[in-house]
């Protein structure tokens, strides 16, 4: 791999992504884990920019970092067990083995390592270096693809229904039960005071 500014930037963002990911799964403190998740997702946004998909990079920052990660932090706060004595469960060694084996398998398939070592017919080494250029108005094209009945209008509408279902479902799931609402109700205030306060 030649040493250009672009490959250096790619290296930087890959390190941020993978390093953040590693820290997410190994840290003891959950809040730090959420912050490292934000770092890793920011690295992914950088990779999207390198891949000339600026719209997806912007959406990544808005949706993942600005909403999902904050939602995760809120959930961490609402379920306080932040510093656990033992972050990993009893089968972590098997998990490590599985993850490493999977990575080795995937790496052998996508990189040209195996064909260099002589084993033919196993990998589909994707050594494409000079991709065709991206058309200028790809964002406009993406927008019109989403509302084109012959392309992505149906998935777009189904996605919006899915989001509405998730919204309603999440709100219904965390509504306080009637007993909890009784406990949380404010103490009795006289009617007069209520009327006075609303003027």
């Amino acid at each position: 791999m030649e040493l250009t500014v672009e490959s250096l930037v790619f290296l930087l963002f890959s390190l941020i992504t993978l390093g953040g990911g590693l820290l997410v799964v190994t840290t003891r403190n959950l809040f730090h884990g959420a912050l490292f998740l934000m770092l890793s997702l920011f690295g992914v946004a950088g990779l999207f920019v390198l891949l000339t998909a600026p719209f997806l990079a912007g959406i990544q920052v808005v949706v993942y970092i600005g909403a999902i990660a904050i939602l995760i932090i809120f959930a961490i706060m609402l379920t306080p067990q932040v510093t656990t004595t033992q972050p990993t469960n009893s089968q972590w060694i098997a998990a490590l083995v599985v993850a490493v084996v999977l990575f080795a398998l995937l790496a052998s398939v996508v990189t040209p390592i195996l064909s260099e070592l002589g084993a033919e017919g196993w990998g589909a080494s994707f050594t494409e270096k000079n991709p065709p250029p991206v058309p200028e108005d790809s964002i406009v094209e993406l927008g019109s693809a989403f509302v084109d009945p012959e392309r992505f209008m149906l998935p777009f509408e189904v996605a919006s229904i899915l989001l509405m279902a998730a919204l309603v479902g999440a709100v219904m799931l965390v509504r306080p039960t009637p007993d909890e609402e009784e406990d949380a109700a404010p103490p009795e205030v006289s009617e007069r005071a209520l009327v006075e306060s609303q003027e």
Partner: protein
Amino acid sequence: MVPLYMYLLVAAGLFSIGLYGVLSRRNAIAILMSIELMLNAANINLVAFWRYGQPANVSGQAFAAFVFVVAAAEVAVGLALIINIYRRRRSVVAEDVDLLKW
């Protein structure tokens, strides 16, 4: 430009890290965070193939956008479930939710 397999390698690495997190963490929210890592790895894969394969066809970017939508919906409902479990059982450790185990 950077060869395609480097991006795929990064995506594979992120996916494996997320897999390790899902299988080995005790806290349910940590498991959810690892699932997010796996979804992001899939996204990197999609966009890399779109860029190096057929950048004129926006289906790659549209697919990735739909993955965003699904991830957001899943995280919202998943966290609502976890908060509910916490209210009833006072614990978010995944091993403690074992009423249906034999």
